[in-house]
């Protein structure tokens, strides 16, 4: 078993709390992605698992073994660093073989493992090169190779793609996913990029200010964020948030944002009954804003349509991002690419109300 359990893990740097009482279990063979903005404690959490940071309090288990006082080399982990941290004076072969040599593996086995890893990563022809003769993507592969030759229980990745250009990042994303299936190992992957998290993770752990805010499969956290931070962090462009009020009229509930008023779906009623007359934050994803002309699955009506004006138009080809204003509010819509509009033109936008969210403005937790 190579699961990783963190119990009440806290890490303080002097007075600053980097990791605040984190309790998570990463399952065997899982691809766990810790994601959050910079300074959220994700890297510190990873480094604590690696043994590079000592936990201020709490327990760390790897494969059911308490490892708080175990040296990094004896934790049976391998780590891929953001800047690769290759040894510049060793060639690629020796970069990968270094850990095995230190562990006194027989030469034959070292050879075989390095060869195998090099084949998996497609770097067989680079084994004699020094790191400075490699491109960024090749260095990345060597760093991964150095991790896989050791056949550790758990792989730790610290923002491994952030130094690559955008195109390469997309390609490496797919490769790391493939690698995960092939190695059947537990991977803990840290990133600030929610797209990496969404595309690779079995489960996403969203962190902010040292705490884990939500854990779930990518689509689960996308569809059912349990607080405003997660809702805003997952998804791109980010969810639109609009300060509104719940009003009850003739047994129906409406979301009133002053500049517009839409009707809450029936399914929301039981949960929003207590909020009648109170302030809420109305959340709607850009992809749930539709140009009235191209809306198909939902029926436009006065209850879900708002009048807006286009401010900025960003055609991306497959879709079009439109920055809209509606009275004092600004929202972003991700629209059908057929949408024809020019700046300052008005536009009728239909909201997919079933997919919207409401948040409590005080606790920032989701209401529905």
């Amino acid at each position: 078993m190579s699961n990783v359990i963190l119990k009440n893990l806290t890490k303080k740097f002097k007075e600053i709390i980097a990791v605040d009482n984190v309790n998570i279990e990463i399952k065997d063979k899982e691809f766990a992605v810790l994601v959050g903005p910079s300074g959220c404690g994700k890297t510190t959490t990873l480094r604590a698992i690696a043994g590079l940071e000592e936990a201020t309090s709490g327990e760390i288990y790897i494969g059911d073994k308490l490892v708080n006082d175990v040296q990094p080399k004896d934790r049976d982990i391998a780590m891929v660093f953001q800047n690769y941290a290759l040894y510049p004076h060793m060639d690629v072969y020796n970069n990968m073989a270094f850990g095995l040599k230190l562990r006194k593996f027989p030469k034959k086995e070292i050879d075989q493992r390095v060869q195998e890893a090099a084949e998996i990563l497609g770097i067989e022809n680079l084994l004699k090169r020094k790191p400075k003769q490699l491109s960024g993507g090749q260095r990345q592969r060597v760093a991964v190779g150095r991790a896989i030759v050791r056949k550790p229980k758990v792989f730790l990745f610290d923002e491994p793609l952030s130094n690559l250009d955008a195109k390469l990042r997309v390609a490496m994303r797919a490769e790391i996913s493939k690698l995960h299936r092939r190695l059947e190992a537990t991977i803990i992957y840290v990133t600030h990029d929610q797209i990496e998290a969404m595309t690779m993770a079995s489960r996403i752990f969203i962190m902010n200010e040292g705490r884990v805010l939500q854990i779930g499969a990518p689509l689960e956290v996308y569809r059912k964020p349990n607080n405003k931070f997660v809702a805003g962090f997952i998804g791109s462009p980010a969810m639109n948030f609009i300060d509104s009020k719940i009003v009850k009229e003739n047994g129906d509930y409406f979301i009133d944002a002053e500049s517009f008023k839409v009707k809450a779906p029936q399914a929301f009623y039981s949960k929003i009954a207590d909020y009648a007359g109170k302030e809420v934050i109305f959340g709607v994803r850009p992809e749930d804003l539709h140009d009235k002309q191209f809306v198909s699955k939902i029926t436009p009506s006065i209850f879900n349509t708002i009048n807006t004006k286009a401010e900025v138009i960003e055609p991306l080809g497959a879709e079009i991002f439109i920055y809209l204003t509606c009275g004092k509010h600004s929202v972003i819509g991700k629209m059908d690419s057929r949408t024809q509009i020019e700046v300052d033109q008005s536009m009728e936008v239909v909201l997919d109300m079933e997919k919207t969210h409401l948040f409590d403005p005080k606790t920032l937790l989701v209401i529905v």
Partner: protein
Amino acid sequence: MKISLTRLLIYIILAIFSIFYIIPMYIMVVTGMKSFAEVSLDTMWNLPNSFNFNSFSLAWLGSIKEGFRGISGSFLNSVFLVVPATVISALFGSLNGYVLTKWQFRGSDLIFTMILFGMFIPYQSIIIPLVLTLQRLHVYGTIPGLILVHVIYGIPISTLIFRNYYVTVPTEMVEASKIDGANFLGIYRWVIFPLSTPGFAVAMIWQFTSIWNDFLFGLIITPNPASQPITVALNNLAGSYIVQWNVQIAGALLTALPPILIYIFLGKFFLRGLLQGSLKG
């Protein structure tokens, strides 16, 4: 054209400074070539009448007739002093720098400051306790005693050089090797040491020069001519009755030769190392 004019000005200024700095060297070379009869303040600037290396061989071999030892006997003393002292102090500096940057502990910055403080203690102020200590250790008057003093006095500067260099070596590399399975010494041996060439170039060239050029420690710690370094022997060339300037100056040139050669041939490593330590990152 404006650019080339400023260039021209720069070159002129540089040339003036170069000449200014090279004048003493000129005087030394021409005086060294002169015979004793030719040496006088009036003819100081003149070229020698003939190329004559007698004063160099006199300075090197000495003269029993005229009652002075040459510097040749002390040349090897200096080599046996400088080489180990340079290597050992660079190694200590490297280990210190490694610990102070990659294994920081509570109070490590304070210790670094205190090590640096050692640079500002004037030699003269510690001479009496130094001699007493060396006598207790039974190394007073010997080359190993002199090596010990230079190693200790070299620790602050070489620690500073290596610390500043190792700051530019990514700490992730040390962390990667920790995970790869290396321990404190293993990381030094396999990762840090092989990357230290620029640091060693700077520290060793620096140490070589300053130990070679040291006069005070040699004078005080090795009163016995058999173990004196070359700088002390150079001073003793002065003889007892008359000062032969041409021989003195020839000896000074010979004594200064090794550091000059090192700078000429290894100067680029020195500069490169200095730049890597301070500007990169």
